[in-house]
């Protein structure tokens, strides 16, 4: 088990030194998945044979002395809204049950090129809509820190897998916080890169102007190495940035925050945040100040409209993106009784194949885009986006990075937020602005909340294209906190009993 708690960078180093083979490592990982997954439900598909054959290939190449990429042989999990050739890709929905893509997402191609054995596809809220995996058509994932609680969402499969040593690291996607929120509530690291830094080709689209693929890991260096592995211009994604953002791995080697200006976002502090969350957040800031950073207060007044704008833009874009699930070319086809036109087949299929949250958002999005309402709702929301970008630009004049607690609370209980759809949406209050503005954000663990001994995450934000700043400050904070605790965040996790 000690092997499986090592970081991806440690494992990569062990593989290079031949202290372990990729087959041994991958097999140990798969054994742990077989043991824990029936209970935690992190994975929807486990690709035993594929992973082992990929691992063997790496071992053979290494034995021949071939030069290999940095993360070669380190196994990885992939969120199930990324297309993988020959492997079922469901997006957590019944409408894609058993769908086998005929193409790989670009990030999957990069994982293959980096020779990282793929362990399987992880669970998510249906079409990435949700913050708990309770909207998955295949059951929720559980939080390894407390099995009665959710591991966040939509990427709760990835976060729970990485937090329970069922994978050293994973790739996720983040539209309103789906990488960062699960990271915060599972004591892991999650990064949403600058919009366009990582290709969206092959990512089943939710909100095309908001989606971004990113790393889910147990430490900052692993996230840096993974972002470097998956980032880059992709001609298949027209929103893909033409330029490289530089090496995050190099940034994560940073050892100083002297003179770094850290802006606390006024609107993301105070009463809306659980006391223990604020406490740990403030302690983390004290640690950074003691190391030479400066704190400034910044204000982004437009943030009070962020959730509202997001829950107009995202459903609107989703309603358009999910129109392709129409029974014609792929996915579920439900034939209603009697003679039915293709339109009736479409309607019956979508009724049967989509869950309630997905239907709600499609209908809401349709409303926001419909004639007579377009300007008032969707149009207004797009203007809020402009205001948010303007507020952030002003804030970044005074600060190099901005900071907030990643989430208002620690992990909540299964079923706790099902009554009121609005309650669930509030989880994303701190993460949403980054997606609306296109800027990068990182959540990293800063301790356990006093009230419930559950993980707390702090979120750093940087200007667009300045992802390296996140890794620079994240690496230092992580090192300082681990020194303060004399252990790593994961060492605080309770023992997992799944029998």
């Amino acid at each position, binding site marked *: 088990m000690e092997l499986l708690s090592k970081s991806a960078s440690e494992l990569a180093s062990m593989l290079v030194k031949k202290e372990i083979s990729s087959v041994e490592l991958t097999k140990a990982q798969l054994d742990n998945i077989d043991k824990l997954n029936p209970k935690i439900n992190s994975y929807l598909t486990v690709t035993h044979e594929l992973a082992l054959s990929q691992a063997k290939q790496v071992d053979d190449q290494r034995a021949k002395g071939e030069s290999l990429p940095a993360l070669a042989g380190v196994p990885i999990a992939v969120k199930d809204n990324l297309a993988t050739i020959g492997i079922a890709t469901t997006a957590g929905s019944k409408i894609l049950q058993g*769908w*086998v*893509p*005929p*193409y790989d997402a670009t990030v999957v191609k990069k994982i293959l090129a980096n020779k990282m054995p793929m362990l399987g596809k992880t669970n998510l809220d249906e079409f990435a809509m949700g913050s708990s995996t309770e909207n998955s058509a295949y059951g929720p994932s559980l939080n390894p820190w407390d099995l009665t609680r959710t591991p966040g969402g939509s990427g709760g499969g990835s976060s729970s897998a990485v937090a329970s040593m069922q994978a050293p690291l994973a790739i996720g996607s983040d539209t309103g916080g789906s990488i960062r929120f699960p990271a915060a509530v599972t004591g892991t690291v999650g990064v949403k890169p*600058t*919009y*366009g830094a990582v290709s969206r080709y092959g990512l089943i689209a939710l909100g095309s*102007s*908001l989606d971004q693929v990113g790393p889910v890991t147990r430490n900052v260096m692993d996230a840096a190495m993974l972002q470097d592995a998956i980032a880059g211009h992709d*001609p298949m994604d*027209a*929103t893909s940035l033409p330029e490289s953002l530089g090496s995050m791995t190099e940034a994560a080697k940073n050892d100083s925050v002297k003179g770094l200006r850290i802006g606390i976002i006024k609107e993301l502090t105070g009463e809306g945040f659980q006391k223990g969350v604020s406490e740990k957040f403030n302690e983390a800031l004290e640690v950074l100040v003691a190391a030479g950073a400066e704190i400034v207060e910044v204000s982004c007044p437009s943030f009070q*409209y962020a*959730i*509202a*704008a997001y*829950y*107009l833009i995202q459903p609107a874009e989703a309603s358009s993106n999910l*129109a392709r699930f129409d029974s014609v*070319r792929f*996915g*579920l*086809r439900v*034939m209603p009784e009697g*003679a*039915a*036109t293709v*339109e009736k*087949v479409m*309607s*019956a299929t*979508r*009724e049967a194949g*989509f869950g309630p949250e997905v*239907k*709600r958002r*499609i*209908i*809401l999005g*349709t*409303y926001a885009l*419909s004639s007579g309402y377009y300007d008032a*709702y969707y149009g*207004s*929301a*797009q*203007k*809020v*986006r*402009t*205001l948010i*970008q303007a507020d952030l630009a002003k804030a970044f004049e005074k600060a190099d990075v901005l900071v907030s607690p990643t989430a208002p609370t620690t992990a909540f209980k299964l079923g706790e937020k099902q009554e*009121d*759809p*609005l309650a669930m949406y509030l989880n994303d209050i701190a993460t949403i602005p980054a997606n*609306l*503005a*296109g800027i990068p954000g990182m959540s990293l663990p800063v301790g356990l909340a006093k009230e419930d001994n559950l993980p707390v995450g702090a979120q750093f934000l940087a200007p*667009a294209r300045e992802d390296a700043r996140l890794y620079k400050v994240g690496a230092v904070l992580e090192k300082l906190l681990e020194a303060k605790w004399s252990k790593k965040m994961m060492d605080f996790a309770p023992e997992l009993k799944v029998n």
Partner: protein
Amino acid sequence: MTEITPELVRHLAGLARIEVTEAEVAQFASQLALIVDSVATVKAVASQDIVATSHPIPMSNVFREDVVTPSLTQKEALSGAADSDSGRFKVSAILDEE
């Protein structure tokens, strides 16, 4: 208070090609009314002189060379189809019998 009537929900579901049940119509009507009320706040702050942002990172003229490159084969493209025939997707009648 926004008027999300059951009739409006049925209309929107029709546009979205989702055959909702009556129970769903009632449930969605009340849930959506709550949500719309809360998101309507954007109207307050979005004045005339603000330009809308649709693309977070603006780019223009994203072109590629007009060269044919490998794509999906017909077989691959049909691989997910519920029904196909002679290299085409097969669906039910497009028009009503009447």
